[in-house]
């Protein structure tokens, strides 16, 4: 049979597989585990030498059409495969024996797989059991709390926003600290996490230590997440439909609520009278009946809906999986919205006995309306401010130039004398426009059209030696439009602007490997050699314009042509990697793995282009030793140690061109207006660094896997120490050079910590079971060396003096500032202390804030600053409990983080710590709440310990209650599985008492040099959803 015929046949098979008629008798039965008689779901049952097959349902039941003499094969991971010949019985119950000898769970590793019992690195596996029932818009959101050592932080909680994933701490100051992503063996952009359907995911493997990740060389320095997608199984085509719909509500902040009448009461109580501004505000409240906190307007909640449809099946030779998904997430903020459409087609086929090929294609489209400014902006506005004018508000408070339905703005208000003191005034809020208009009149969209595709072909050259070549293609088209309408700002049409950015990215990855796997008696070898070539291209262009006269054309067509500017940036990154690995096991007891990778990257100049990344790891299965082999207590006891090097060449210095060609001296356009013309000008863009080289991470892990008492207690314990050296750093240089920074290799950071996983089967019987999982990880970050940049300060972009410092012996980018002396808050005293100091600020009348004179020299100077905290958690933990009773199951996870701090300057905005006495409300309330002694004592430009809050949180992350209908009920309606469930996320989310914002996990910039800064953050939300899964 030639290839063509075979391909045609394959295609025919593919389309007709469901049409095969099924004859003979119907065999039913249950498959249970021999150890505890608990039914096993998902057992593969195939009729050998036919295309027939099925799997057991949630209760271990199966049914299959058979004929006398059929050979039935029952197989399940971790159990000994059993073969039974059918001899006309009606039912066939099978009891599978646990394969303790092999503990044969297979784990996906870099460029291959390995028996779990043979692992020597730190790899965590998460099987998608109920993850797809968590109503979140991205798969990474569902992984929170599932893996030790992995911190997934909701740094951007708007609908569709990506969380920040950190594995074993932050090891870079300028380079990217996110893990690499590999889907079915192909390296893809981490953005794929936002496009993949959780229903298609079979399992996640997280390569945490360098020894495991080193085979990925320069991709692996921050860990690797491997995703294995679901494949079809031989047998009848199974269809499944999974859907849920839920409601999301924001966790607002009670600390930031505002109310005009409450302010008035506080002011009356404090001063015995009401100011003109307050009386004015009350008059507006009386006229409109509106006196509400803006959180009520902005945090309107939203629905989340998902529909996922899949068909999976195949025969022994060809298996396929096809799926289609829609997800709609309205977000919890008024305008944010996210829609995802994605499909997946995956096929694997045997071509004869020795070769296989397969392909996977995942097209997707997302549309996201992003929030146009930080949420603190609108929600901090005054509660008396209505959204729209009415005839009454126009008549009472304005000069009449407005019409009913126009946005109500502070600027519209006439100055009036409500307190009859002879002075006209008006109440203040601090927005440039109506807060509602700030969001509704600005439309910021991201459209992403992506295609991920991969194919592979493998061929067994002779027994044990397999060659494999695969090609991965990623096409990503992103269009970002940013429309700011003519009504979004008080200044009207002149502030209208539009920009559109189109970016097309491609990534081609070609992997070619030879794998030799062979057992010689007690010696097991697995040898891998390969070469990988990668090419990434990005072509982006941006057009922006202003000068709009109205909102009719919300695109560049409406802009004034002279205002239009266009830019184009193309980049290219190419890499070649050579790698090899030997895994060796002796009698399942003594395990050794060694790997080596050599990577060349276009990012570096000729002298430093290549980097070497070796790794070695060893393991000892003590439980297999004779002295423990017959122990009733130990089922598993394995010691592991690993050491490896990984590298990184990714960094972001704000210019895509410099990011890709840091070793070349580049020029930028520097045109200037001269004699009313605009001649071409140029100027240098960067300081070229021809010797820039790989950032290298060196990691040592020692670990222990354990299983006691029939594996009722199992888990692992790891200690790691990762040292990142030659950090790729955007290092500040003197302005006198004409530049602000240069990219250098400088600094050494260490992350070290413990990872602990404990899984227990507390109760396990046929009717009721209760399992628990405790996961806890610690991390400590320390800057070990920083050359002449030790103590380098980085200031904040807010124009306020928030500062980060990089100091040897401390975590990188720690918060740096003054310590507030709370005991000194006495108005009468601190006017006389510190006479000569920088805090004589506000009109010279009083000190702004009292800080401690740490060095005791009697003066407050920069020397009195100290480290106030760091944004990295010391401990993250989760505790999951799963209960099963009959057909009901219930699970919940509590999850939390301890020891991180956050620089939340939201307080300054919400309490109006800007020393402007004309602003109403904020100060009075702050005084009443005991938060500040007096408005005029607050100095907003100084980072003090008062601004730094604890970022600790404790959450009831997930709750899930499900019911699987019994098979005898649903089989009548022709379905093989029916599950109803209710699920909830973040029903409870408790933050530290000194944190006042909306989300202690939020980060404004995603910039490792200024990490942990926020202005209250995009709110954490709770979700309650209901779902149905149907299999037929």
């Amino acid at each position, binding site marked *: 049979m030639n290839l063509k015929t075979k391909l045609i046949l394959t295609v025919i098979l593919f389309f007709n597989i469901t049409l095969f008629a099924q004859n003979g008798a119907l065999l039913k039965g249950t498959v249970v585990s021999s150890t505890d008689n608990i039914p096993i779901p998902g057992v593969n049952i195939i009729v050998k030498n036919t295309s027939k097959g099925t799997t057991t349902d949630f209760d271990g039941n199966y049914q299959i059409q058979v004929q006398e003499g059929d050979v039935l094969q029952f197989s399940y991971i971790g159990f000994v495969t059993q073969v039974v010949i059918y001899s006309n019985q009606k039912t066939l119950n099978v009891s599978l024996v646990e394969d303790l000898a092999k503990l044969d769970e297979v784990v996906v590793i870099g460029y291959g797989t390995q028996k779990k019992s043979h692992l020597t690195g730190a790899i965590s596996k998460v099987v998608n059991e109920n993850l797809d029932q968590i109503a979140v818009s991205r798969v990474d959101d569902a992984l929170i709390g599932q893996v030790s050592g992995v911190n997934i932080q909701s740094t951007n909680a708007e609908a569709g926003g990506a969380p920040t994933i950190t594995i074993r701490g932050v090891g870079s100051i300028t380079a990217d600290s996110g893990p690499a992503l590999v889907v079915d063996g192909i390296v893809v952009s981490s953005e794929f996490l936002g496009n993949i359907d959780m229903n298609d995911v079979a399992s996640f493997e997280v390569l945490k230590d360098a020894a495991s990740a080193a085979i990925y060389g320069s991709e692996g320095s921050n860990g690797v997440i491997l995703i294995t997608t679901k494949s079809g199984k031989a047998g009848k085509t199974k269809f499944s439909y999974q859907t849920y719909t839920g409601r999301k509500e924001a966790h607002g902040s009670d600390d930031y609520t505002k109310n005009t009448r409450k302010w008035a009461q506080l002011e009356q109580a404090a001063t015995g009278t009401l100011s003109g501004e307050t009386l004015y505000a009350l008059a507006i409240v009386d006229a409109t009946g509106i006196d509400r906190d803006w959180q009520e307007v902005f945090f309107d909640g939203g629905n989340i809906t998902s529909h996922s449809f899949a068909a999976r099946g195949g025969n022994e030779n060809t298996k396929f999986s096809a799926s289609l998904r829609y997800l709609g997430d309205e977000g919890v903020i008024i305008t944010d919205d996210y829609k995802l459409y994605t499909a997946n087609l995956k096929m694997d086929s045997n071509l004869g006995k020795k070769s296989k090929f397969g392909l996977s294609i995942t097209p997707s489209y997302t549309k996201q309306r992003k929030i146009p400014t930080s949420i603190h902006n609108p929600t901090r506005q005054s509660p008396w401010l209505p959204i729209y004018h009415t005839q009454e508000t126009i008549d009472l408070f304005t000069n009449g130039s407005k019409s009913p339905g126009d946005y109500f703005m502070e600027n519209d208000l006439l100055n009036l004398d409500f307190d009859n003191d002879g002075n006209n005034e008006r109440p203040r809020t601090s927005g440039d426009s109506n807060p509602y208009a700030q969001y509704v009149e600005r439309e910021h969209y991201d459209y992403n059209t992506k295609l991920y595709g991969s194919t592979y072909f493998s061929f067994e050259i002779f027994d044990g030696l397999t060659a494999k070549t695969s090609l991965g293609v990623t096409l990503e088209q992103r269009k970002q439009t940013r429309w700011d309408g003519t009504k979004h700002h008080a200044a009207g049409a002149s502030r209208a602007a539009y920009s559109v950015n189109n970016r097309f990215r491609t990534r081609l990855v070609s992997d070619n490997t030879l794998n030799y796997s062979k057992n010689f008696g007690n010696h097991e070898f697995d040898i891998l050699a390969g070469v990988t070539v990668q090419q990434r291209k990005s072509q982006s262009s941006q057009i922006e314009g202003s000068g709009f006269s109205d909102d009719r054309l919300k695109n560049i067509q409406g802009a004034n042509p002279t205002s239009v500017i266009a830019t184009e940036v*193309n*980049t290219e990154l190419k890499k070649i990697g050579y790698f090899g690995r030997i895994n060796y096991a002796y009698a399942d007891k003594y395990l050794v793995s060694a790997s080596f990778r050599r990577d060349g990257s*276009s990012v570096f100049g000729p002298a430093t282009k290549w980097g070497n990344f070796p790794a070695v790891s060893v393991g000892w299965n003590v439980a297999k030793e004779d002295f423990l082999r017959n122990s009733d207590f130990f089922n598993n006891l394995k010691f592991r140690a690993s050491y490896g090097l990984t590298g990184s060449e990714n960094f972001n210095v704000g210019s895509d061109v410099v990011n890709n060609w840091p070793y070349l001296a*580049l020029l930028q356009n520097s045109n200037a*207006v001269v004699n009313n013309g605009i001649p071409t000008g140029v*100027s*240098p863009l960067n300081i070229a660094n021809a010797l820039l080289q790989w950032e290298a991470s060196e990691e040592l892990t020692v670990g222990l896997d354990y299983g006691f008492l029939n594996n009722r207690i199992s888990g692992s314990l790891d200690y790691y120490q990762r040292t990142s050296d030659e950090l790729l750093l955007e290092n500040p240089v003197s*302005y006198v050079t004409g530049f602000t920074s240069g990219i250098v290799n400088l600094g050494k950071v260490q992350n070290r910590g413990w990872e602990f996983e404990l899984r227990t089967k507390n109760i396990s019987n046929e009717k009721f079971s209760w399992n628990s999982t405790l996961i806890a990880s610690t991390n400590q970050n320390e800057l070990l060396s920083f050359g002449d940049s030790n103590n380098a300060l980085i200031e904040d972009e807010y124009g306020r003096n928030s500062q980060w410092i990089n100091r040897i012996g401390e975590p990188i980018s720690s918060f740096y500032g003054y310590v507030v002396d709370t005991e000194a808050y006495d108005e009468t005293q601190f006017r006389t202390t510190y006479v000569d100091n920088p805090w004589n*600020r506000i009109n010279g009348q009083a000190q702004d804030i009292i800080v401690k004179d740490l060095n005791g020299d009697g003066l407050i100077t920069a020397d009195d600053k100290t480290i106030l905290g760091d944004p990295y958690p010391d401990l993250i933990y989760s505790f999951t409990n799963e209960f099963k009773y009959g057909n009901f199951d219930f699970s919940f996870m509590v999850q939390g983080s301890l020891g991180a701090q956050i620089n939340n300057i939201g307080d300054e905005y919400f309490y109006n710590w800007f020393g402007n006495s004309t602003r109403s409300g904020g100060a009075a309330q702050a005084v009443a709440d005991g938060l500040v002694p007096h408005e005029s004592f607050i100095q907003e430009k100084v980072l003090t310990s008062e601004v730094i809050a604890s970022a600790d949180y404790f959450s009831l992350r997930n709750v899930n209650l499900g019911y699987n209908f019994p098979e005898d009920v649903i089989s009548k309606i022709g379905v093989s599985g029916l599950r109803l469930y209710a699920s909830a996320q973040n029903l409870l989310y408790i933050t530290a008492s000194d944190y006042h914002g909306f989300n202690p996990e939020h980060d404004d910039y995603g910039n490792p040099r200024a990490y942990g800064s926020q202005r209250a953050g995009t709110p954490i939300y709770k979700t309650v959803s209901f779902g149905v899964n149907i299999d037929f």
Partner: protein
Amino acid sequence: MKHIKFLVFAITGFIFTSCNTDEFLNPVPDTVVTVESFFQTDADVLAGIIGIYDAIQGVNENTTTSLTRANRGVQFEHLLTEHRTDNTRNKTLEGSKSDFHRYVVDANNVESEDYYQSMYEVIFRANNVLDYIDIADENNRAKYVAEAKFLRAYAYFKLVRLYGDVPLVTSVLGPLDKEALFTRIPKAQIYEQIIEDLQEAINVLDNTQKARASKAAAQGILAKVYLTQANPNYSGAQQLCESIINSMEFDLEPNYHDVFYNELNNEIIFAIQYATGNPNESQSFSSEFTSGARRQGREDGQNIVNDNLIADFELIGGDRTSVSYFTFPDATEVTKYLPDGSDLSNPAAPTYGGSARDAGNDYIVLRFADVLLMHVEAVLAGGEATVDSGALASFRRIRDRAFPATAPNAIASVTKEDLLRERRVELAFENQRYFDLVRFGVLDAVLSAHSAEMGYVYDSRKASLLPIPAREINISEGLLTQNPGY
């Protein structure tokens, strides 16, 4: 079948073994040019010269793609100069821009740091072009050198007056030349370099350009240098001013309004130009000045006019008053740089045209009126009053334009106080007042009285010099010293 499979492997293997890894791993950028490949012709060197003008122009803060910290240059200059005098103030106390008018700037101040950076960017680009000057046509070479040195002198003159002793570099330095980058050179030495550079410009350049360096521009700035330096060279300044006056190439615009709204007019000697509506080539300060009630600017309002200045305008403003500022119900705002299409006829609802935030109004570095008043100052030569006829004539030309109805206005003598006030009113909001107070030796006296009036705590050290940016000191490892008071 078997053969096909092997063929596939063979092909794949061939592709990767035959690929030239050197070529593959060295892609060439196609949306920027490299320094190596660029400087080839005279036009390329000229593009480098234009790049220096781009640096003095600064980057509009309102450009959507602009970086958070970039060269704003002269667009922030009013904060460092006008705000630090009795002329103007910030509308609110929010953010680092509000620190200047209360003399509470600290060493981390964003705008002061940006200005320091901006001026060194000008100097760097000038020094950098000089490295490629041999590529230029022979007959253009001297002119390009003079232009680059003029602009370098312009930047050093700003730096030395605002920050005192500063590092002096006249060639391109790398980040490792720490000694030169972080050693503060005494002011006198900086002035020597400025004078040398400006004299070269005077010798080489002519007066054909107003938006690029010219002989008169170099003369005028050198005159101001002579008046400013520790031992003023009054006769040198007088000669330079008279040379400009006698060249008859410049004259006062008859109508004061036209000075600001008729670009590159007769009165302009050197201006930094902008183009309306072009986000890359426009300026932000016009909109910041029109923002008393957040009308156009990013901030809550800058250059809000102090009553103290209004009093001087009421005294001697004449026709200049209505052009210079406008009193709205909530603030008095600068109107010398109103964006195209502005209409203030309804003070309750003023409009500012379609491109207020991308304004094209030029920044006037040097105009003839300034030269006339410097002439008076040079003749006065540090004395209390003068009756010199030439000086009186120069002074009268300024007065006659301001008060045309009573022209010729009788001027019997000009006192130092008269001259300072005349400069304050004539050149209000043109970033001259601060430097005038320094030159006239009255900075402390005027500003401490002003602070008392406004309720500010006056710190003479902070008023006299701005801080060397803390980040510079921080990365200098102790080489760089700070100014007193910071």
